[in-house]
């Protein structure tokens, strides 16, 4: 990660190079979070655009209490959830201490996907499985596994405790595994 202080200073001076660096660093990362939540390319691009515009508005007053990336991810997350809430209520999550989803499928497909599926089929299965996750679990999974952010930063973005972030990640992994297990099992059976 670049030095936020230097990038922020250059952005405040409206340096075109600093803008390019900011855009190159964050546009695709923010887009992946927005697209993962909204499932719509146009809406995801709008949210990314709005997040950058908010940053431009706040540049002079940006205090740097959180990292630039953390701040941008948080804005994208909140804007995306706002858009979703405008359409329907968000799925409630179980409490942190509630029982975990128990595994149902015990088919070992860990060696299967790349060998038996086309790239397009695999992409479709991955897409369908993650779309079935509650949005708040989806956000945590994307930030942690796709973006590779540590639990502490994910927690700051989602404005939850680190332990709550870890529980969300654990639940997301188990639910996705179950979804993929069923999809791959059906796919294998249908080819036999």
């Amino acid at each position, binding site marked *: 990660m670049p030095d936020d202080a230097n990038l922020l200073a250059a952005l405040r001076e409206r340096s075109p190079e600093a803008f390019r660096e900011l855009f190159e660093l964050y546009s695709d990362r923010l887009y992946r979070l927005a697209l993962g939540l909204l499932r719509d390319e146009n809406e995801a691009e709008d949210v990314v655009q709005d997040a950058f*515009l908010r940053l*431009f508005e706040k540049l002079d007053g940006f205090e740097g209490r959180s990292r630039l990336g953390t701040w941008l991810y948080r804005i994208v997350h909140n804007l995306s959830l706002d858009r979703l809430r405008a359409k329907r209520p968000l799925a409630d999550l179980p409490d942190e201490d509630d029982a975990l989803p128990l*595994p149902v499928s015990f088919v070992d497909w860990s060696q299967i996907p790349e060998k038996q599926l086309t790239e397009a089929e695999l992409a479709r299965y991955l897409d369908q499985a993650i779309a079935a996750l509650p949005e708040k679990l989806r956000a945590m999974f994307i930030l942690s*596994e796709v973006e590779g952010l540590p639990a502490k930063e994910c927690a700051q973005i989602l404005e939850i405790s680190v332990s709550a972030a870890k529980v969300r990640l654990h639940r997301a*992994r188990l639910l996705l*595994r179950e979804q993929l297990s069923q999809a791959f099992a059906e796919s294998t059976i249908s080819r036999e």
Partner: protein
Amino acid sequence: MTCEELLQYLSDYIDNELDEDLTAEARAHLATCHNCKVVLDTTRKTIFLYRERGKRAISAERRQELFDKLQTSFLGKASE
């Protein structure tokens, strides 16, 4: 360690965040429990697949459009 406990600790085990004693207990359980080993292997594979294939990007054309719009806005602020 029971299957329920293994499930509870699964992510910590995958992320190498369990202490030595619990890691040893988990390993011992996994050596004898086929179902838990399958859950571990397929969870690891799930994570791997999304890490490898989850990095979608804005299409080149749309990315350029977004860049141009934002750059105009950003630089426009300089002349205000």
